[in-house]
């Protein structure tokens, strides 16, 4: 026969989207933050990033090849994203073996044991991070002090508390906000914005993270609702308490630019797989994360709450998906 035609159902054209495109867009969006952390932590940051990404790739490959014995899809970029986010969640001086264990938990337990990409109910990188935080609390909370690449290296391998840690400690010790802010270890306002402070790799620069977030929103990889609702809730809630008692509760912008809030709101909570499907659902989810975060930060045992908040809300996602359906066309139609 001269020509064998293909038969398939419509549509016969496809947009240019693909899974790996989505994943590599996220990777691209993380580049500014990677640069900032490399600037502040130097080779340490590069080391952590490489170990995390490579071990995530390795575990994904090994599990797909030897345990699942299915097709190998490490090139789709999802393991790279998980590795990068995992690295962003740890201090730059974390021993390599802890990081490898974290990667195993991230890929092995949080992702592959549920069936791999698209099936995991929780954000894999966060599960890895929380696992490490609980198992290795000392290593996970000894934060190296940021020392910009071109600044004079006065001391080597000095660790210092994070801004949030300082705050928590100070409040617990009964100090007022003013006293805490005057602590010499406390990063100045501008430093908090650019990331010149101690903390995990990805918590550094709010500006770099926001830049990546805007890029992802522009590329339609994430919706603006989730990050916005989280940030807004945290800001509003912290603001209310600050107004009630400014000596005990710090001003809300402090909460926005310290800790992992930006990282969590922009990159972790928006993870496609573990976030809700509908716009209303996304609002609920974001507000929930914001509330839980600020509750943990103000009254919880940990100085930082965003990871727990996201994981808790991840658990609610199936329920949110079931209860908040998109607005159906022609249902409860507006007559005139």
């Amino acid at each position, binding site marked *: *026969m001269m020509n*064998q*035609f*293909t*038969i*398939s*159902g419509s549509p016969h054209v496809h947009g240019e989207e693909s899974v790996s495109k989505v994943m590599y867009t996220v990777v691209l969006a993380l580049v500014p933050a990677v640069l900032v952390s490399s600037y502040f932590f130097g080779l340490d940051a590069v080391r952590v990033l490489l170990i995390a990404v490579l071990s995530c790739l390795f575990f994904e490959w090994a599990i797909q090849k030897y345990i699942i014995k299915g097709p190998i899809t490490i090139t789709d970029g999802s393991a790279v994203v998980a590795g990068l986010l995992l690295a962003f969640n740890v201090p730059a001086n974390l021993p390599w073996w802890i990081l490898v264990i974290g990667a195993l938990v991230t890929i092995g337990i949080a992702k592959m044991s549920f069936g791999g990409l698209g099936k995991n109910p929780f954000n894999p990188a966060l599960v890895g991070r929380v696992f490490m935080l609980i198992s290795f609390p000392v290593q996970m909370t000894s934060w190296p002090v940021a020392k910009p690449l071109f600044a004079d290296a006065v001391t080597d391998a000095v660790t210092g508390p994070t801004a949030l840690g300082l705050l928590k400690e100070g409040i617990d010790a009964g100090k007022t906000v003013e006293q805490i802010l005057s602590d010499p270890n406390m990063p100045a306002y501008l430093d908090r914005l650019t990331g010149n402070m101690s903390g995990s790799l990805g918590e550094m620069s709010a500006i770099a993270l926001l830049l990546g977030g805007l890029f992802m929103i522009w590329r339609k990889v994430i919706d603006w609702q989730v990050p916005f609702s989280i940030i807004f809730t945290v800001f509003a809630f912290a603001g209310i308490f600050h107004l009630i008692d400014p000596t005990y509760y710090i001003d809300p912008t402090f909460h926005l630019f310290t800790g992992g809030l930006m990282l969590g709101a922009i990159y972790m909570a928006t993870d496609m797989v573990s976030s809700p499907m509908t716009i209303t659902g996304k609002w609920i989810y974001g507000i929930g994360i914001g509330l839980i975060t600020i509750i943990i930060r103000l009254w919880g045992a940990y100085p930082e709450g965003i990871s727990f908040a996201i994981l808790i809300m991840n658990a609610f996602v199936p329920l949110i998906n079931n209860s908040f359906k998109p607005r159906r066309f022609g249902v409860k139609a507006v007559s005139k």
Partner: protein
Amino acid sequence: MNEVLLFALLTLGLLGTVAAVILYFVAQKFKVIEDPKIDLVDDVLPKANCGGCGFPGCRAFAEALVKSADVNKSIDGLNCPVGGNDVMKDAAAILGLEVQEQDPLIAVIRCNGSKANSPAKIDYDGPSTCAFAHNLYAGEGGCPHGCLGLGDCVASCDFDAIHMNPETGLPEVNDKCVACGACVKACPRGIIELRPKGKKDRRIFVSCINEEKGGVAKKNCAVACIGCSKCFKVCPFEAITMNNNLAYIDPIKCKLCRKCVEVCPTDAIHELNFPPRKKKPEVVENTTEKESVPAASSDNKNETQA
């Protein structure tokens, strides 16, 4: 002993006791009274929950059996195709009834439009489900009645009894078939039929359900039934009927004489598990061809390539 420990033990112990008492009364109050025979019958059923009996699961079938025995004093018309006569006898014994022996059935694939017999004229690109492809077009080979080869029957089978042969692109039924009828329902084209297994597993059937005119059918598939009526004329037992250019062999009237197989010009009539025949040279040619295929897959009785 530590005071705290004691307190904890006492509290929990007390709580447990209270809960147990509550549970006991609740269980008494909401007890479901069921005919004990249902449990007994349920025990002898195969627990495949395949739905082949027409009831949703074995438990429902057991209830239906007991109900029928109570009301009608017979369980005729109810049959578990999976368990067959043995299971039905056991069930009848529990209910104190007799049961009629029934011929065991097996799924038969009435299409031989393999990749060689009905070559693909187009290329299908879509999900592997016959139900969808059936809505879309006539099929890669062009026969609107033929097997689409996407395996809805395979997916529907709970007994691992039907598999696609990648070479022919057709499904094949093996010994594990219990005639539950799931594949019959799953096939959007109605190709699969449950037929009696036959003595020594010998069966003769028309492996085609194409109702188009002979010429059209033959154009798409080399082994289509062209409705020539030769088999109809030759059959001494009136077991063959002709409808819409298609022959059908009634398995009950058929005495397995194999005359129809010989006269079929397109080899659309298949015979299974017969010894090789000796007469007539042109038939010998046929037989050798047919012999070779079951030999290739000796342990699984080849349904499609008689």
